């Protein structure tokens, strides 16, 4: 997930059912990896810049599992400016 760097991530709200497009963007890494023909642990995505309105973004991971209601989003060391 790409989250605006200056906006704290609201992880209480489910970002999948209530996507706040102003705050962040969730690329489907599984799908993007298939398109780029790469596989985990390598992650590749090519996304449109259109919804990325802020100046800088931080990359988070949202791990999902069928038996778990919520997992804490995991922050990565990667931030970038546009």
């Amino acid at each position, binding site marked *: 997930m790409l989250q605006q760097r200056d906006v704290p991530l609201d992880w209480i709200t489910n970002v999948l059912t209530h996507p706040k497009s102003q705050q962040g963007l969730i690329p489907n890494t599984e799908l993007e990896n298939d398109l780029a023909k790469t596989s985990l*642990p390598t*992650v590749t995505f090519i996304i*449109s810049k259109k919804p990325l309105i802020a100046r800088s973004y931080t990359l988070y991971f949202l791990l999902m599992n069928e038996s778990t209601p919520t997992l804490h989003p995991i922050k990565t060391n990667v931030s970038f400016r546009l």
Partner: protein
Amino acid sequence: MTSPILATNSTLFLSIQRASNSHHTGLWAWLQFQITGQIDLRWWLVAGNLSLLGITYLFYTNLANFPRWWNLPVAFFKRYEYGITTTTSQRYSIYSVISTASLFVFILSEAQTFSHIKRFLFPTIFAFSVAIHLKYVTFCLRNPEGRKAELTTKMENYQLTHLGYDYFEIAILDKLRRNSNYNLSISAPIHSKAFYDNFNQPPVKSIKLRVNQLYQTRDKLHFTGTILGTTEHIAAINRIF
């Protein structure tokens, strides 16, 4: 144009007018609005009650070969079951009067052929109708509470589906309430302790990525990175399940 309330009341006017078009409801509402400047349901109720007199009169004029006071039981069959002010009670009373009148006509036509019934028919029906009116006799539905719940849940679910929100079906909530599962106590925790700890203290707080490629073109953002330390993280996440 036709709200549920107006549609319910339309039956009253339709019975007077012998009209089969439901758009007459809107016409009546429009007419009242043009005359008085507002749509008042109370006048509709009054008109509905007057229509009952009209039905009794129709029955009275069509009583052939019988004394005219035979329509007394029909008038007595009217009974306010759910209160006087609701549209449901209006509909209930008009249906009951109409059905009683038609039933009565049928019995009378049968009595023409069997003349010995004729002698006891009027006192029987009259006593029966008075007994019903004074609530000495009550018709009981099979499982009335169940039917009521079923109907109301259907109505509520219809409203909820058309509101556009996520919801539990009322039937499910009702089932939970009836089986007292709202207050269900859980003797042992369902998940492991690590599972619940995850909500307070996530097992993996951060992941390190090695960025292989990160660049942007005019309209696209390209990213390729590799997750470092995968096996530890997977082990940490697996611990909570």
